[in-house]
C-alpha cells in the first residue's frame, strides 16, 4: 500500500529535501514506523519519549485532522494522503 506523506520544511533535512515521500502502512502508527525505517531519526521528531505524537504536530489524513478520526490508529488505504503539519500557525 503506497501512501503519500507530505513532509514539513523543518523535517525535510531528514528526507533529503523531499517535500513528499511514499511509504507503506495500514494506519498512521505504521506510517510513522515506516518513515523511521526510511528516514532514521524522524520518529523522535514526531513523537515524544513515550511514543505519543508531539503536541505541536498535527497529522491529517485526506485533509481531515486525525483527532477527529481515530488518532494514530486512523486506518489508511492505497492512495490516501497524509500531511504532517506544525500546529503553530494561524490566528
Amino acid at each position, binding site marked *: 500500500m503506497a501512501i503519500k506523506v507530505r513532509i514539513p520544511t523543518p523535517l525535510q533535512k531528514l528526507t533529503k529535501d523531499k*517535500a513528499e515521500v511514499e511509504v507503506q502502512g495500514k494506519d498512521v502508527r505504521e506510517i510513522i514506523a515506516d518513515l523511521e525505517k526510511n528516514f532514521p531519526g524522524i520518529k523522535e521528531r514526531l513523537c515524544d519519549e513515550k511514543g505519543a505524537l508531539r503536541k505541536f504536530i498535527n497529522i491529517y489524513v485526506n485533509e481531515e485532522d486525525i483527532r477527529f478520526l481515530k488518532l494514530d490508529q486512523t486506518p489508511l488505504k492505497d492512495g490516501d494522503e497524509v500531511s504532517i503539519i506544525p500546529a*503553530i500557525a*494561524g*490566528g
Partner: protein
Amino acid sequence: MSYIKGLKCRECGRHYPKECLYVCEYCFGPLEVDYDYERIKKALTQKEILSRPKNLWRYRELLPIDGKPTDGLDSGFTPLIRARNLEKLWGLKELYIKDDSVSHPTLSFKDRVVAVALSRAKELGFDTVACASTGNLANSVACQSAVAGLKRYIFIPADLELSKIVATLIYKPTLVAVEGNYDQVNRLCSEIANKYKWAFVNINIRPYYAEGSKTYGYEIAEQLGWRTPKHIVVPCAGGSLITKIYKGLKEFYKLGLIDAPKTKFYAAQATGCCPIITAVKENSEIIKPVKPNTIAKSLAIGNPADGIYAVATVKETDGAAESVTDEEIVEAIKLLAQTEGIFTETAGGVTLGVAKKLIEQGKIPKDESIVVCITGNGLKTQEAVVDKIGKPIKIKPNLEAFEKAIN
C-alpha cells in the same frame, strides 16, 4: 538599530537566527523573538515614549524589526474609553473599553500585527505576502500590502461575511475563497507556505507578526496612567492576543515602566467554538479541536495555535474563561452600541457578553478596574444584527404622516 538577539523555542529553549523560521526543528514548539532587554531598558523610558507620535511604533524597541518601521505608521493608539453608562447599568466602579473597532486603516486590531509583519517581511527580503484569515486579517494584509507595493495572496473560508470580502477585494489582492472552515484554510496555507517562498504573516513569519499584539497591552497600561487594570476580558480565536497582552504587561514591568501587574486575564469565546474555554473549565493540558458553528466567524478557530498558552495565561493570572451563545452575542453588540456608542463586530459581542456573565457570576468583582477588549468593527458583520434591530419608519414627506407614524 536592532534589539533582536534571535529566535528562541518557547518549549525547549533552543536558539535560532532571526530569520524566516517559526517552529523549532526538534520539538515543533513555537519560536519567539528573543530581545536584548538590557539595552531596551536604557533606550525606552516613559519620557521617551511620551515624546513620540501616537501610534504603535512608539514602543518600537519592543517590536521585532531591525531598522526603521515602514508600515502601519498611523496604526495603534486607539481610544481607551471610560464606559460610564455601562458602569451605571451594571453597578461597577471602573470599566474601560479598549476600542480597536476604530483602528487605522482597517478597523480591527489586526492592523497592529500586520504593521509589524510587513515591516519585518521586507527586511527578510520578501516581495509577496499572504495570510489565512477569518476576515479582519484579510482586510489588513490586503490594505497594508497594497500601500507597501507588495504582491498579496489572501485565503479565507468561502462563507465569510460579505463586508469582509468587499473590504479585502477593494485592495486588489488575489483572494482565494476555500471551501471549508478556517482550520482547513489554515492547513492548506501551511502546505502552500511549505512550497511557495511567500511571507505568510501568520505562518512562517508568525514569531514577528504576533508581537504586534503586545502594543494593545502597552497602550492600555500607558492610557491608564502607567498602571494595569485588575481585570481584563479578551476575545480568543487562535489564543495569541491574550497571550501577547500578558507578555506586554510583563515586559513593561521588566523595563520598570509599571509596577508588577496583578491583572487577571479572562478568556472569551462563543459557545459554538470554545476549545480554549473548555480546556480551562476541564483543567485540561491539551486543547481538543472542535468544528466551529457560531456567528462569531472572526473567532471561529477550532484548532487554536496558541490555545495552550491562552489557557496558561488564564491559570497563571488566576482569571477565568467563559463563553456566550449567538443570541447573547447579538444582545451584547446592541448593548455596547446603545450605552457606549461603539458598534462592534460579533467578536466584540462575545467579549462584552462574557464580561457581563463573569460580573453576574461574581467572578469579576464590581469594585475593581476592568478593561474589555473590543477588537473589531460592527459594520463588517452586519448580517449578525440586521434582522434584530428593527426597521426605519417609512412615511410620505409631510408633517401629518410623520405625526401619525410616531404616535
